[in-house]
Protein backbone atom coordinates (compact mmCIF):
# COMPACT_ATOMS: atom_id res chain seq x y z
CA UNK A 1 0.00 0.00 0.00
CA UNK A 2 2.64 2.54 0.98
CA UNK A 3 5.40 3.15 -1.53
CA UNK A 4 8.65 1.30 -1.04
CA UNK A 5 10.82 2.94 1.53
CA UNK A 6 13.41 4.03 -0.98
CA UNK A 7 10.78 5.88 -3.01
CA UNK A 8 9.42 7.89 -0.10
CA UNK A 9 10.77 11.35 0.45
CA UNK A 10 12.29 12.09 3.83
CA UNK A 11 9.25 14.21 4.63
CA UNK A 12 6.90 11.36 3.84
CA UNK A 13 9.00 8.98 5.82
CA UNK A 14 8.88 11.19 8.91
CA UNK A 15 5.31 12.26 8.14
CA UNK A 16 6.52 15.81 8.55
CA UNK A 17 5.18 18.78 6.61
CA UNK A 18 7.55 19.77 3.84
CA UNK A 19 7.33 23.34 5.10
CA UNK A 20 7.79 22.20 8.67
CA UNK A 21 9.85 24.18 11.12
CA UNK A 22 12.97 22.52 12.60
CA UNK A 23 10.90 21.88 15.74
CA UNK A 24 8.18 20.11 13.74
CA UNK A 25 10.79 18.04 11.93
CA UNK A 26 12.43 17.07 15.21
CA UNK A 27 9.10 16.11 16.73
CA UNK A 28 8.20 14.04 13.68
CA UNK A 29 11.60 12.36 13.84
CA UNK A 30 11.16 11.45 17.50
CA UNK A 31 7.70 9.99 16.89
CA UNK A 32 8.89 8.04 13.84
CA UNK A 33 11.84 6.66 15.78
CA UNK A 34 9.57 5.60 18.66
CA UNK A 35 7.09 4.03 16.25
CA UNK A 36 9.66 1.79 14.61
CA UNK A 37 11.72 1.07 17.71
CA UNK A 38 12.16 -2.60 18.61
CA UNK A 39 9.88 -2.12 21.61
CA UNK A 40 7.01 -0.64 19.59
CA UNK A 41 3.89 -2.74 19.94
CA UNK A 42 2.15 -1.42 16.84
CA UNK A 43 4.67 -2.36 14.22
CA UNK A 44 5.72 -5.74 15.54
CA UNK A 45 3.17 -7.60 13.49
CA UNK A 46 3.45 -5.39 10.43
CA UNK A 47 7.21 -5.31 9.97
CA UNK A 48 9.90 -7.83 10.75
CA UNK A 49 12.84 -6.85 12.95
CA UNK A 50 15.03 -6.49 9.87
CA UNK A 51 12.48 -4.26 8.16
CA UNK A 52 12.16 -2.11 11.27
CA UNK A 53 15.95 -1.80 11.40
CA UNK A 54 16.01 -0.76 7.74
CA UNK A 55 13.28 1.80 8.34
CA UNK A 56 15.09 3.14 11.40
CA UNK A 57 18.28 3.51 9.37
CA UNK A 58 16.37 5.47 6.76
CA UNK A 59 14.74 7.59 9.48
CA UNK A 60 18.18 8.44 10.88
CA UNK A 61 19.32 9.28 7.36
CA UNK A 62 16.28 11.55 6.93
CA UNK A 63 16.99 13.25 10.24
CA UNK A 64 20.64 13.77 9.38
CA UNK A 65 19.61 15.65 6.24
CA UNK A 66 16.53 17.51 7.42
CA UNK A 67 18.07 18.67 10.69
CA UNK A 68 20.89 20.39 8.83
CA UNK A 69 19.71 23.61 7.17
CA UNK A 70 22.18 23.46 4.30
CA UNK A 71 21.63 19.77 3.56
CA UNK A 72 17.88 20.28 3.77
CA UNK A 73 17.97 23.12 1.23
CA UNK A 74 19.99 20.95 -1.15
CA UNK A 75 17.63 18.03 -0.62
CA UNK A 76 14.56 20.20 -1.25
CA UNK A 77 16.07 21.50 -4.46
CA UNK A 78 16.82 17.94 -5.57
CA UNK A 79 13.28 16.87 -4.70
CA UNK A 80 11.87 19.71 -6.80
CA UNK A 81 14.01 18.67 -9.74
CA UNK A 82 12.77 15.07 -9.52
CA UNK A 83 9.14 16.14 -9.56
CA UNK A 84 8.14 19.79 -9.73
CA UNK A 85 4.70 18.94 -8.33
CA UNK A 86 6.24 18.09 -5.01
CA UNK A 87 5.62 20.72 -2.41
CA UNK A 88 8.87 21.66 -0.78
CA UNK A 89 9.62 24.68 1.33
CA UNK A 90 9.85 27.97 -0.41
CA UNK A 91 9.44 31.08 1.60
CA UNK A 92 6.40 32.09 -0.46
CA UNK A 93 4.56 28.76 -0.59
CA UNK A 94 1.56 28.13 1.58
CA UNK A 95 1.89 25.35 4.15
CA UNK A 96 0.63 21.95 3.03
CA UNK A 97 1.12 18.59 4.69
CA UNK A 98 3.64 16.45 2.83
CA UNK A 99 1.39 13.41 2.94
CA UNK A 100 -1.26 15.12 0.88
CA UNK A 101 1.15 15.88 -1.94
CA UNK A 102 2.29 12.50 -3.22
CA UNK A 103 5.41 12.27 -5.34
CA UNK A 104 3.39 10.50 -8.01
CA UNK A 105 -0.28 10.54 -8.84
CA UNK A 106 -0.69 6.81 -8.37
CA UNK A 107 1.10 4.55 -5.98
CA UNK A 108 3.29 1.88 -7.56
CA UNK A 109 3.24 -1.77 -6.54
CA UNK A 110 2.77 -2.43 -2.83
CA UNK A 111 5.83 -2.07 -0.66
CA UNK A 112 7.76 -5.30 -0.25
CA UNK A 113 6.78 -5.63 3.35
CA UNK A 114 6.10 -8.84 5.15
CA UNK A 115 2.51 -9.50 6.06
CA UNK A 116 2.16 -10.87 9.55
CA UNK A 117 1.39 -14.59 9.69
CA UNK A 118 -1.83 -13.86 11.51
CA UNK A 119 -2.86 -10.93 9.36
CA UNK A 120 -6.47 -11.59 8.39
CA UNK A 121 -6.71 -12.62 4.78
CA UNK A 122 -10.03 -11.27 3.62
CA UNK A 123 -9.73 -12.83 0.20
CA UNK A 124 -9.43 -16.38 1.42
CA UNK A 125 -11.55 -16.10 4.55
CA UNK A 126 -10.65 -14.72 7.92
CA UNK A 127 -9.01 -17.76 9.44
CA UNK A 128 -5.33 -17.11 10.13
CA UNK A 129 -2.83 -19.42 8.46
CA UNK A 130 -1.96 -21.21 11.68
CA UNK A 131 -5.62 -21.46 12.68
CA UNK A 132 -4.93 -19.96 16.11
CA UNK A 133 -7.21 -17.24 17.38
CA UNK A 134 -5.74 -15.13 20.12
CA UNK A 135 -6.75 -11.64 21.17
CA UNK A 136 -4.48 -9.95 18.68
CA UNK A 137 -5.97 -11.90 15.77
CA UNK A 138 -9.52 -11.12 16.90
CA UNK A 139 -8.66 -7.46 17.18
CA UNK A 140 -7.09 -7.35 13.74
CA UNK A 141 -10.07 -9.07 12.19
CA UNK A 142 -12.40 -6.61 13.91
CA UNK A 143 -10.38 -3.64 12.67
CA UNK A 144 -10.21 -5.13 9.18
CA UNK A 145 -13.98 -5.37 9.14
CA UNK A 146 -14.29 -1.78 10.35
CA UNK A 147 -16.06 -2.66 13.58
CA UNK A 148 -15.48 -0.59 16.70
CA UNK A 149 -15.09 -2.23 20.09
CA UNK A 150 -18.05 -0.19 21.26
CA UNK A 151 -20.23 -1.77 18.58
CA UNK A 152 -19.25 -5.27 19.68
CA UNK A 153 -20.09 -4.28 23.25
CA UNK A 154 -23.46 -2.87 22.20
CA UNK A 155 -24.34 -5.92 20.11
CA UNK A 156 -23.19 -8.59 22.51
CA UNK A 157 -23.84 -6.74 25.79
CA UNK A 158 -20.35 -7.77 26.88
CA UNK A 159 -18.62 -5.20 29.05
CA UNK A 160 -15.90 -3.30 27.18
CA UNK A 161 -13.51 -4.10 30.00
CA UNK A 162 -13.86 -7.80 29.21
CA UNK A 163 -13.56 -7.19 25.47
CA UNK A 164 -10.32 -5.28 26.00
CA UNK A 165 -8.99 -8.04 28.25
CA UNK A 166 -9.84 -10.66 25.61
CA UNK A 167 -8.20 -8.71 22.80
CA UNK A 168 -5.14 -7.91 24.90
CA UNK A 169 -4.73 -11.51 26.07
CA UNK A 170 -4.82 -10.29 29.66
CA UNK A 171 -5.86 -13.70 30.93
CA UNK A 172 -5.83 -12.68 34.58
CA UNK A 173 -8.62 -10.19 33.91
CA UNK A 174 -10.91 -12.54 32.03
CA UNK A 175 -14.20 -13.85 33.40
CA UNK A 176 -14.52 -17.51 34.49
CA UNK A 177 -14.07 -20.02 31.61
CA UNK A 178 -17.74 -20.81 31.24
CA UNK A 179 -18.55 -17.13 30.65
CA UNK A 180 -15.45 -16.64 28.56
CA UNK A 181 -16.50 -19.33 26.07
CA UNK A 182 -19.87 -17.66 25.70
CA UNK A 183 -18.25 -14.27 25.19
CA UNK A 184 -15.86 -15.65 22.60
CA UNK A 185 -18.70 -17.26 20.67
CA UNK A 186 -20.63 -14.00 20.65
CA UNK A 187 -17.59 -12.05 19.48
CA UNK A 188 -16.93 -14.64 16.78
CA UNK A 189 -20.50 -14.31 15.59
CA UNK A 190 -20.07 -10.54 15.21
CA UNK A 191 -16.95 -11.18 13.15
CA UNK A 192 -18.62 -13.90 11.05
CA UNK A 193 -16.27 -16.56 12.43
CA UNK A 194 -16.87 -20.08 13.65
CA UNK A 195 -17.71 -19.52 17.32
CA UNK A 196 -16.83 -23.01 18.48
CA UNK A 197 -13.44 -22.94 16.79
CA UNK A 198 -12.61 -19.47 18.08
CA UNK A 199 -13.57 -20.43 21.64
CA UNK A 200 -11.58 -23.68 21.48
CA UNK A 201 -8.55 -21.99 19.97
CA UNK A 202 -8.54 -19.02 22.33
CA UNK A 203 -9.00 -21.09 25.48
CA UNK A 204 -6.34 -23.59 24.34
CA UNK A 205 -3.94 -20.71 23.84
CA UNK A 206 -4.85 -19.37 27.26
CA UNK A 207 -4.20 -22.76 28.88
CA UNK A 208 -0.83 -23.03 27.12
CA UNK A 209 0.11 -19.62 28.41
CA UNK A 210 -0.95 -20.48 31.97
CA UNK A 211 0.98 -23.77 31.81
CA UNK A 212 4.10 -21.93 30.68
CA UNK A 213 3.78 -19.50 33.57
CA UNK A 214 3.34 -22.28 36.18
Amino acid sequence: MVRPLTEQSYYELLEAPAEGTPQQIERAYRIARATYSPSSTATYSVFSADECAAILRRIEEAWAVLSDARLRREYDARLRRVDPRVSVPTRASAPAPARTVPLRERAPAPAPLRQAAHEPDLDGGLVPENGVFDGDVLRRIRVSLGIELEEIAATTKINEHHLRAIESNRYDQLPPPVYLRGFLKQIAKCLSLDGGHVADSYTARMRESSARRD
Partner: protein
Amino acid sequence: MDPVDTSDRARRLARVLISDVAAYAGDQVRIGLEKDDLFERLAPEIAQARVFYLYHVDPCVAERARLFEFALVDVLVYGHRRVQTHIW
Protein backbone atom coordinates in the same frame (compact mmCIF):
# COMPACT_ATOMS: atom_id res chain seq x y z
CA MET B 1 -6.54 -7.30 4.70
CA ASP B 2 -7.90 -5.99 1.41
CA PRO B 3 -6.47 -2.66 0.28
CA VAL B 4 -8.68 0.15 1.47
CA ASP B 5 -9.39 1.96 -1.75
CA THR B 6 -12.42 4.12 -1.10
CA SER B 7 -12.88 7.19 1.06
CA ASP B 8 -15.74 5.57 2.94
CA ARG B 9 -13.69 2.56 3.92
CA ALA B 10 -10.70 4.76 4.78
CA ARG B 11 -12.90 6.92 6.98
CA ARG B 12 -14.26 3.84 8.67
CA LEU B 13 -10.81 2.36 9.26
CA ALA B 14 -9.52 5.64 10.69
CA ARG B 15 -12.47 5.82 13.04
CA VAL B 16 -12.02 2.25 14.22
CA LEU B 17 -8.31 2.77 14.82
CA ILE B 18 -8.77 5.99 16.75
CA SER B 19 -11.64 4.64 18.79
CA ASP B 20 -9.33 1.75 19.68
CA VAL B 21 -6.69 4.26 20.79
CA ALA B 22 -9.32 5.84 23.05
CA ALA B 23 -10.66 2.51 24.28
CA TYR B 24 -7.24 1.19 25.23
CA ALA B 25 -5.94 4.48 26.63
CA GLY B 26 -8.17 4.34 29.68
CA ASP B 27 -8.22 7.65 31.52
CA GLN B 28 -5.50 9.18 29.37
CA VAL B 29 -7.97 10.85 27.00
CA ARG B 30 -9.78 12.59 29.84
CA ILE B 31 -6.52 13.59 31.53
CA GLY B 32 -5.08 14.77 28.23
CA LEU B 33 -8.09 16.99 27.62
CA GLU B 34 -8.01 18.32 31.16
CA LYS B 35 -4.31 19.15 30.92
CA ASP B 36 -4.50 20.21 27.28
CA ASP B 37 -1.79 17.78 26.21
CA LEU B 38 -3.95 15.09 24.63
CA PHE B 39 -2.04 14.69 21.38
CA GLU B 40 1.37 14.77 23.06
CA ARG B 41 0.20 12.28 25.67
CA LEU B 42 -1.12 9.82 23.09
CA ALA B 43 1.49 10.58 20.42
CA PRO B 44 2.98 7.04 20.28
CA GLU B 45 -0.44 5.36 20.09
CA ILE B 46 -1.65 7.81 17.46
CA ALA B 47 1.55 7.37 15.47
CA GLN B 48 1.14 3.61 15.59
CA ALA B 49 -2.46 3.86 14.44
CA ARG B 50 -1.33 6.14 11.62
CA VAL B 51 1.29 3.62 10.50
CA PHE B 52 -1.37 0.92 10.28
CA TYR B 53 -3.78 3.26 8.50
CA LEU B 54 -1.29 4.47 5.91
CA TYR B 55 -0.07 0.94 5.36
CA HIS B 56 -3.53 -0.29 4.43
CA VAL B 57 -5.12 2.73 2.74
CA ASP B 58 -4.27 3.18 -0.90
CA PRO B 59 -2.44 6.47 -1.51
CA CYS B 60 -4.86 7.25 -4.33
CA VAL B 61 -7.75 7.59 -1.86
CA ALA B 62 -8.70 11.25 -1.86
CA GLU B 63 -7.89 13.09 1.35
CA ARG B 64 -6.25 9.99 2.79
CA ALA B 65 -4.22 11.81 5.44
CA ARG B 66 -6.98 14.26 6.21
CA LEU B 67 -9.52 11.51 6.88
CA PHE B 68 -7.27 10.25 9.63
CA GLU B 69 -6.95 13.73 11.14
CA PHE B 70 -10.73 14.18 11.01
CA ALA B 71 -11.19 10.91 12.87
CA LEU B 72 -8.66 12.04 15.48
CA VAL B 73 -10.58 15.19 16.24
CA ASP B 74 -14.00 13.62 15.93
CA VAL B 75 -13.34 10.62 18.15
CA LEU B 76 -10.81 11.94 20.64
CA VAL B 77 -12.02 15.51 21.04
CA TYR B 78 -15.67 15.76 19.99
CA GLY B 79 -16.37 12.30 21.35
CA HIS B 80 -15.20 13.48 24.77
CA ARG B 81 -16.80 16.92 24.66
CA ARG B 82 -18.40 16.41 28.05
CA VAL B 83 -15.04 16.27 29.82
CA GLN B 84 -14.67 19.28 32.09
CA THR B 85 -11.65 21.17 30.85
CA HIS B 86 -10.54 24.77 30.46
CA ILE B 87 -9.86 24.29 26.75
CA TRP B 88 -13.53 24.86 25.90
